[in-house]
């Protein structure tokens, strides 16, 4: 119907939400002025970096394989040729070192974009993210702000095993002084990365490897070089009245698919794309729950002390009287990530998990406490 090339990545799809709002392309070419252009998340990130580097000579990129190799996941493709080795800096495999160097350069007024090849490797550098970057503005009473962006793929990919699959949203999201962003679509990727680079504070920008190849429609507004999304504001991807589903990154696509399935069973789900873990848009989440009275939180990270736990606490604190059912959490399994494909599938939320949890919250299923 759309005639658009899409990469089939893990079942995640943002397009379906657009179907609700916009009419088919073939008959509607002239009916609205917004997008017929599609862009992959990879290109969205690349174009955002390109534009911000062109706009501000203080912006530079640093990380492993970002230059000559064109980026381990090709996010920085073409930037070395365009901006040269002083602004696209290949580093040795030494995260603690180059994260520290990045923060130091930000102390002195540069605007680094530090790439972690995956956020698993950020653990080697986490002291700099937290102690050197997040806390500096506070400790110096505002003298030293740190306009740095730490970006890279976060969470599981496919079959990469226990040491390469962790989601760091909850860890970074708990630290005051940091901003933590979680784009889903190409529009999110462009708008949030541009906002992050322009922001005067340290931003942890959690991408997702499996979303890089996914295409999303982008309007002319999104493609404009001044496009920016506000930090700290969630997006209602799909309006609904029966239940609220919160999600971020790849799980937004799964939540949207779950919503389609729930629709067939007469459950009209509202899907919130968090876009920002810190600041967390409690207002939007609570307003939604006050409307629907039921909540399912979805994340790929470990459940204990996770994003869903914080969202549940917020809702219980601010909207307790509005809840008609216990809050349901769908999260990664409480185990290190297994390699075997069948076990890995059990370790991360699937669409049916979201559907099942939503039905429970709507008292459409017998609640089970199955013991394995």
């Amino acid at each position, binding site marked *: 119907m759309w005639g658009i090339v899409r990469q089939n990545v893990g079942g995640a799809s943002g397009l379906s939400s657009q179907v609700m709002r916009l009419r088919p392309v073939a008959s509607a070419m002239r009916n609205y002025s917004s997008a017929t252009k599609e862009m992959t998340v990879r290109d969205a990130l690349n174009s955002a970096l390109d534009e911000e580097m062109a706009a501000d000579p203080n912006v530079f990129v640093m990380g492993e394989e970002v230059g000559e190799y064109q980026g381990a996941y090709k996010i920085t493709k073409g930037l070395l040729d365009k901006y040269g080795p002083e602004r696209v800096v290949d580093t040795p495999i030494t995260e603690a070192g180059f994260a520290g160097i990045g923060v130091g350069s930000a102390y002195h007024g540069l605007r680094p974009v530090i790439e972690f090849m995956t956020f698993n490797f950020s653990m080697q550098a986490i002291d700099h993210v937290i102690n050197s970057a997040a806390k500096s503005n506070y400790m110096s009473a505002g003298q030293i702000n740190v306009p740095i962006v730490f970006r890279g793929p976060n969470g599981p990919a496919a079959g*990469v095993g226990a040491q390469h699959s962790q989601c760091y949203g909850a860890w970074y999201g708990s630290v005051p002084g940091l901003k933590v962003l979680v784009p889903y679509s190409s529009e999110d990727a462009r708008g949030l990365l541009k906002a992050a680079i322009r922001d005067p504070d340290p931003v942890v920008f959690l991408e997702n490897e499996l979303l890089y190849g996914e295409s999303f429609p982008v309007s002319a507004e999104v493609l404009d070089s001044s496009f920016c999304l506000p930090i700290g504001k969630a997006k209602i991807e799909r309006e609904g009245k029966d239940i609220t589903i919160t999600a971020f990154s790849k799980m937004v696509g799964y939540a949207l698919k779950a919503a389609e399935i729930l629709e067939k069973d007469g459950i009209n789900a509202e899907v919130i794309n968090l876009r920002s873990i810190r600041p967390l848009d409690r207002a939007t989440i609570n307003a939604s729950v006050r409307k629907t009275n039921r909540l399912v939180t979805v994340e790929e990270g470990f459940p204990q002390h996770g994003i869903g736990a914080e969202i549940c606490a917020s809702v219980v604190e601010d909207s307790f009287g509005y809840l008609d059912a216990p809050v349901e959490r769908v999260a990664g399994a409480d185990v290190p990530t297994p390699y075997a494909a069948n076990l890995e599938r059990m370790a991360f939320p699937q669409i049916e998990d979201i559907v099942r949890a939503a039905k429970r919250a709507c008292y459409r299923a017998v609640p089970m406490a199955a013991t394995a």
Partner: protein
Amino acid sequence: MALTRRISGLLPPVSTASSSSSFLHRRAFSTDDTTTITVETSVPFTSHNCEPPSRSIDTTPKELMKFFTDMALMRRMEIAADSLYKSKLIRGFCHLYDGQEAVSIGMEAAITKKDCIITAYRDHCLFLGRGGTLLESFAELMGRQAGCSNGKGGSMHFYKKDACFFGGHGIVGAQVPLGCGLAFAQKYRKEDHVTFAMYGDGAANQGQLFEALNMAALWDLPAILVCENNHYGMGTAEWRAAKSPAYYKRGDYVPGLKVDGMDAFAVKQACKFAKEHVLKNGPIILEMDTYRYHGHSMSDPGSTYRTRDEISGVRQERDPIERIRKLILAHDLATEKELKDIEKQARKEVDEAIAQAKESPMPDEPELFTNVYRKGYGVESFGTDRKEVRAALP
């Protein structure tokens, strides 16, 4: 053990290999470990803060044949893994060792299974060298129960504790302090054993390596740091990552030796020398000058940052298996055809192991929750839908 049984004349447990290996018994060399052959390393050792060992090494026909057979098997395993990855039977990351076999083979010839080895993610051949089987290797790569980690670890997480092989690590550099820790325990327990902590030129710049090395030197730990310098850290050539790519000198106060890592005998001699050294004097660094034919991993073509001429040049001039082949032929220990038959046999063993691995089932679902802890006290763990799937951890 899968690698050695054929040459020593014992029948392997899997009944397939014996008939085609009978030709080996016609010649005395296959079990001849009394005749001494002296070989010279390709180049002399270069040393830092120590006296280098001699470049003349004594070997036997049996050892030469073993080197050839074992490396042929390793080479075949890695090439087969390449195909399996392309057929999507192996998922995620897959880092291949072909070209670097001599490091594992030479090291094993100099040490015992009570000496420890720890490495990063390019671990398939090291696992085999420690006595792991092809079946365990392929089954692990394909995520099956018969895998050395029951399918739960994957390519980067092979272990064999009973042979003191401690993995198999995904985070660059982490294995070096871990290796120094193994050495710490060996010294603490007053064992006469040593640890080989292996890392690449990419990891050589990691801070944690220098932290651990400093402590190993302070405390005289029996730690041998082995830099497998294949000259590229993922896509970055050594000169772009290291101000000083003379890795054997980077220990400063810690002595070092530069070794031709494509020469199994040089590796053997260096490891023997290192083992004796560290038991008396504390840590040493061995830099193995080696090369990987494949890219960094299966997602890397390996040709955007190096030329095809360079790769084929190394293959022609320095291939570790070819080097042994020439020695065997020069000493008339086997004919060309016999060596080709050994390679055919390796191929056959690999194919059979793959077929067997494919028969092995994926892990049972309850395995999701096993081995989270050694002792879980019955604590509850959860699946993705915590009200649907939960388990008590034993």
